[in-house]
């Protein structure tokens, strides 16, 4: 009996590998287990190796383990890539059609299975997925009724023919004699609770959060690995009177969202690095015109087209420093799927409160890793619309005197939206006076830029770093999905454990809290996936302390493994 178990399903892209993995995760999650998966795929549609690595456990999992207990291989490449990661006593299940150059022994068990054959005989090649799921669930000792129920639900909307083929497939797979010693079957400890838990990816959590936050307009342009945000919104928005619209490019997407935000609708768009680069000018416009808008960046490897399906955290610099001229934005960096949900809601509140663009930054692993989460908390949903003038307030306004951009103490000027009586005013992306009219007056320019930055200053004093203390004088600091890997690594060691932290708001940087952390810790080690040490640089630029802060980077298109973190811990 194990508390945690890891396996990989790998094969040719287009064979339904990811879908099989997702099903297994869903089934396990219904049983009360937690699972976390990592997707390996390339920038092509069919062909090329793809794999999903899954770690299942009785408690929350937020990164995959380095070692594997089972390999399910539909092609040879999967075996050659993952062979080395197999634990002693591990098991390889493979399609009987593929040639094997690995041999049994040393506890390794190899089992050919008639996956392709079953699919063929069932009459539809995509039932291979069903066969994989069935065999794997047998090895994992998942109750048969569960699986069948899952299948029935899954295929109930499909054509009769497809349902029938699948049924044939799963029945054959259930009947097939695996001839496997019980000792090779992988048995997980019974989960604490058997309640069914949701399975989600970060991109979906962002979309769901946005929907719940009242986002009703999402113009977007598809791009890996961010498209799921628009896809989910496209599914649910029409049900709540909203619109998701695929538009001509990213410039249009963000500008339309800005139009929506200006007109009073909570609006967002989602993209990845190339789109962010294209949106830069318009984001500056939203900031100088003080329009609320939310932009999601699920990062991939850059620059340029880069590696569209690989993991990196290299948009931090451009999000933090990029865009011509000086203008404020707020940047949120969730590090778990739950935080994706919560930060999406927070993003809309901050955007309206501070009347500026809010950027929600994920990375590929956080955006795409299918995982079990605890039920999201309805109570966390709060909609705060900031200084939005009510109709009553507007009725008392003299439209000739209305100062949309009044330079008050907080820098936050009460806002009217089109349709609001008396509140009409001019907005321009040119520097302007309190009424919104263009100006070239030096004093006004100075006041207005100071006003815009003053708005967000209070955020620097707040606590936006999540710290988990283990009594160490060393802090491992990260953002995004890296936090999960570090947590799992720390959980693994007995002691001494390092303290760990995730930055949850990158801009404005929580200077005060960072300064306190710098006082408190002997060493702070910043982990990140990019070449230029972007997070490290942002922190040191703001705070100095070069000698106390250390940098660990990885920029080969993959995230840190638990082992890499453990090794760093050993080096302290």
């Amino acid at each position, binding site marked *: 009996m194990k508390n945690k178990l890891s396996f990989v399903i790998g094969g040719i892209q287009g064979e339904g590998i990811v879908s099989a993995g997702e099903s297994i995760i*869903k089934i396990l*999650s*219904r049983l009360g287990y937690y699972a976390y998966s990592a997707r390996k795929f390339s920038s092509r549609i069919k062909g090329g190796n793809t794999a999903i690595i899954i770690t299942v456990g009785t408690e929350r999992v937020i990164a995959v383990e380095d070692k594997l207990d089972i390999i399910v291989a539909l092609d040879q490449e999967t075996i050659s890539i993952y062979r080395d990661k197999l634990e002693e006593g591990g098991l390889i299940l493979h399609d009987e059609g593929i040639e094997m150059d690995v041999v049994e022994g040393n506890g390794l068990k190899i089992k050919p299975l008639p996956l392709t054959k079953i699919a063929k005989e069932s009459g539809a090649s995509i039932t291979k997925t069903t066969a994989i799921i069935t065999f794997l669930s047998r090895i994992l000792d998942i109750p048969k009724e569960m699986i069948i129920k899952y299948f029935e639900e899954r295929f109930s909307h499909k054509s009769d023919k497809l349902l029938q083929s699948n049924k044939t497939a799963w029945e054959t797979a259930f009947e097939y004699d695996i001839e496997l010693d019980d000792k090779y079957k992988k048995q997980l400890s019974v989960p604490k609770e058997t309640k*069914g*838990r*949701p*399975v*989600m990816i970060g991109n*979906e959590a962002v979309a*769901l959060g946005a*929907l719940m*936050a*009242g986002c*009703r*307009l999402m*113009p977007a342009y598809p791009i890996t690995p961010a498209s799921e945000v628009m896809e989910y919104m496209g599914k*649910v928005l029409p049900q*709540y*009177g*909203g*619109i998701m*619209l695929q*538009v*001509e*490019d990213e*410039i*249009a997407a963000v*500008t*339309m969202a*800005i*139009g*929506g*935000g*200006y*007109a*009073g*609708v*909570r*609006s967002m768009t989602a993209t990845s690095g190339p789109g962010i680069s294209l949106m830069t*000018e318009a984001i500056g416009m939203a900031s100088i*015109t003080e329009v609320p808008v939310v932009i999601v960046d699920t990062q991939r490897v850059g620059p340029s087209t880069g590696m569209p399906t690989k993991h990196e955290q290299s948009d931090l610099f451009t999000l933090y420093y990029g865009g011509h001229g000086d203008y404020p934005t707020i940047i949120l960096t969730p590090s778990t799927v739950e935080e994706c949900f919560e930060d999406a809601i927070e993003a809309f509140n901050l955007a309206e409160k501070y009347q500026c663009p809010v950027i929600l930054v994920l990375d590929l692993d956080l955006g795409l890793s299918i995982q079990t989460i605890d*039920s*999201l908390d*309805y109570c966390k949903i709060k*909609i705060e619309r900031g200084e939005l003038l009510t109709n009553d307030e507007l009725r008392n306004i003299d*439209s000739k005197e209305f100062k949309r951009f009044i330079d008050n103490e907080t820098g936050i000027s009460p806002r009217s*939206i*089109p*349709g*609001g*009586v008396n*509140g*009409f005013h*001019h*907005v*321009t*992306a*040119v520097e302007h006076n309190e009424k919104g*009219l*263009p100006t070239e007056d030096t004093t006004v320019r100075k006041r207005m830029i100071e006003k815009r930055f003053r708005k967000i200053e209070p955020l620097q004093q707040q606590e936006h770093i999540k710290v988990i203390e283990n009594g160490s004088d060393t802090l491992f600091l990260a953002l995004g999905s890296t936090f999960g890997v570090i947590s799992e690594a720390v959980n693994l060691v007995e002691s001494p454990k390092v303290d760990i932290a995730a930055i949850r708001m990158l801009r404005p940087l929580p200077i005060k809290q960072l300064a306190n952390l710098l006082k408190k810790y002997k060493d702070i080690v910043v982990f990140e996936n990019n070449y230029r040490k972007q997070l490290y640089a942002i922190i040191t630029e703001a705070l100095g302390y070069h000698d106390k802060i250390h940098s660990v980077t990885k920029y080969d298109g993959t995230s840190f493994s638990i082992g890499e973190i453990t090794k760093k811990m050993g080096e302290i």
Partner: protein
Amino acid sequence: MTSFKKYSNDISPSWCPGCGHYSILRGIQVAADKLKIPNENLVVTTGIGCSGRLSGYVNSYSFHGIHGRVMPLAQGIKLANKELTVIAAGGDGDGFAIGTNHTLHALRRNLNITYIVLNNQIYGLTKGHTSPLSDQGFVTKSTPEGAEDIPLRPGVLSLSAGATFLAQSFSGFQQQMIDLIVKGIEHEGFSLINVFSPCITFNKTNTYQWYRENLVDVSEDKDYDSSNSQMAMMKLMETDGLCTGLIYQQNEENTNDLIVDVDTKALVNQDLTISQEDFNHLMKGFI
């Protein structure tokens, strides 16, 4: 007939005296007055250029954005609140150089917006550079030996991209222009109105006089049927785009129900709160 002043914010435009853009500003104000659009329900968005300044002179909600992006901005506003009257305006450079992509896609998206092109066939604000609508051989600071490229013709292009309403006018034809703007606003879908608007400072070729001599009014052609797209296309091709009037208006009902659907509330008026019950239902989708 001075009640259109209601739509003027009393700021005196920074345009050169005699610039064609004045007439278009007035045209919009008079049209708004004719249609009795409440000031707070009118939104005028503009791009960047001399033309872009227009929104700063209208007494309404108005947004002067970045160069070439007036279309997505206007569409975002209209999508957010379909009850608003959204008028977009911008230069020929704004809409047919840097903004071409958005212009064409706005046409095919066919939201109920009126887009007025302030077409002086030159870049005014940058002090006289060539525009994609400048004729071949046109000499400017950036084409000292004359423009080489085949000019784009807004009319033909708009029809090709699926325009459901296309009109053309001229700063010198105030009455026609006002009528067309009114029609454009009334059209249930996207309306593009290309107005020839002389830049008296930098364009010494396409002057008021030149336009008067070269423009033909489609309504003078008795057989002209502005609901016939092929006829419209032919007319535009024959006149090399130099015609005015209502060039084309689609008869059929607007098919785009993104914002047309009368049963649904404007996005801005939707209830933002989703019940716990609905939330639970949404969460179920993930189990």
